[in-house]
């Protein structure tokens, strides 16, 4: 699977897609593959304020629970309800249907300081 070139990426393997001041966040194909069979996703409550690098959602695989971090500061504007019935969407469609939450970001410029796709792919290789 390729890493979309319009996304931004974190070292903790979240992807961020920015439209205006709304960022959609999910975990990368690499991350879902490492976690394997995802059985539950705990999404944050809409309206909650989060700071950058704050543990915001939880993805549970068969083996363990993993925190998902807010890549930048903002307020939760949406959570992916589909994951309640079908958490495996994070495995089958990590970069699209498996998105986890949306954030109204405090400062969109902060997103642009994250890795772009080529930096992330390089990061994965090291």
């Amino acid at each position, binding site marked *: 699977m390729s890493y979309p070139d319009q996304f931004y990426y974190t070292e903790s393997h979240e992807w961020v897609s920015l439209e205006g001041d709304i960022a959609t966040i999910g975990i990368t194909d690499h991350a879902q593959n490492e976690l394997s069979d995802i059985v539950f996703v705990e999404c944050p409550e809409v309206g909650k304020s989060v700071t950058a690098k704050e543990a915001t959602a939880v993805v549970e695989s068969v*083996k363990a629970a993993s925190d998902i971090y807010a890549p930048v500061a903002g307020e939760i504007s949406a959570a992916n309800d589909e994951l309640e019935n079908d958490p495996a969407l994070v495995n089958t469609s990590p970069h699209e249907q498996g998105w986890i939450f949306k954030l109204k970001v405090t400062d969109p410029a902060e997103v642009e300081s994250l890795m772009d796709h080529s930096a992330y792919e390089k990061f994965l290789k090291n």
Partner: protein
Amino acid sequence: MPEKPSLHLSPLDSAHRKLKARMTPFAGWEMPVQYEGIIQEHHAVRKEAGLFDICHMGEFRVSGPRAESWLNTVLSNDVRQINPGESQYTLILNDRGGIIDDLLIYRITEQDYLMIVNASRREENYDWLKEQLTDNVVLEDISSQTGALALQGPLSLEILERAFPDQKQFPKNRKIMKWDIFDGAESYIARSGYTGEDGFEILVPTELVTQLWDLILDKGKTLGCVPTGLGARDTLRLEASLPLNGNDLDQKFSPFESAVGFAVSFDKPEKFIGRERLRDQKAAGIERKLIPFTMDQKGAPPRSGYSIAIKGEEVGIVTSGGVSPTLGQGIGLARIKSEIAKPGQAIDIDIRGRNVPATLQTRPLYRKSD
């Protein structure tokens, strides 16, 4: 790169890598956690069959004219109850009655026994047993020359019949027999396992285990047999409510506090290690018990270490937890105050600060259909 502690490699290591297994450190070994995926492998074992590498497990041979009475002093159960060719679930206890390890012992002949112990406790067990050794008993750790596979699932027998068409006989449940599959090489096959399904555990010399692995996978393929890793082994045993040493069993707790009191025999003539403390504990009453539970709804799975309460009062702890692929919901084992450790009792499990409802159940949660 950070320096990694050196891990034992299974004799099947290159076979696992060829199958693109995901490897993980486990009890000092680098072992496969999964091949295609834990849930898929889990279902294969429930419906068809799965093949596990269990070369990491320890094998001890105990022999000699006084083997029987010596074993009865160092193990909790009574080996006089088993005949040659039979097995028994038993425990190694410390002198406080706490569980050092749980294991299967096989009586091969009158004076010759085989113990299969957990990888994580192999060295500790051996040192402990060696300290207790008496005259006319020989204890040998044969783990490094022994390779072991577990074939588990309802089609296990059919697969072995295909793989070994010349074999007329296979052991019945809980039995073991010598197996002459590789000319003269000492091998054993037992009808046992750790998944809640029918299945076999096969012991062969280390240098032959890859040949056996390849043969079973090849002959089993058309019947749906797949290689299965430690991930599925854990979900399968948890559904079958089989305790795991290190999670559910612990030196701090006795067999009666761990749902394995059936493996303690007070009737045997020998005074086994831990006996006095267990007697006292039984007389005084058991404070905590190990019991399975299921979550009432789909949702976040319970995990080892989560605390359990009733009406806000803490009553116990989750010792093992996860999602049951068969039931599609969270399940686990919990150590709970005795007075409330009854099937049907409602409990709350603290999952990241939220009280999530669950119910205590009768064990095992999963039982195979006959």
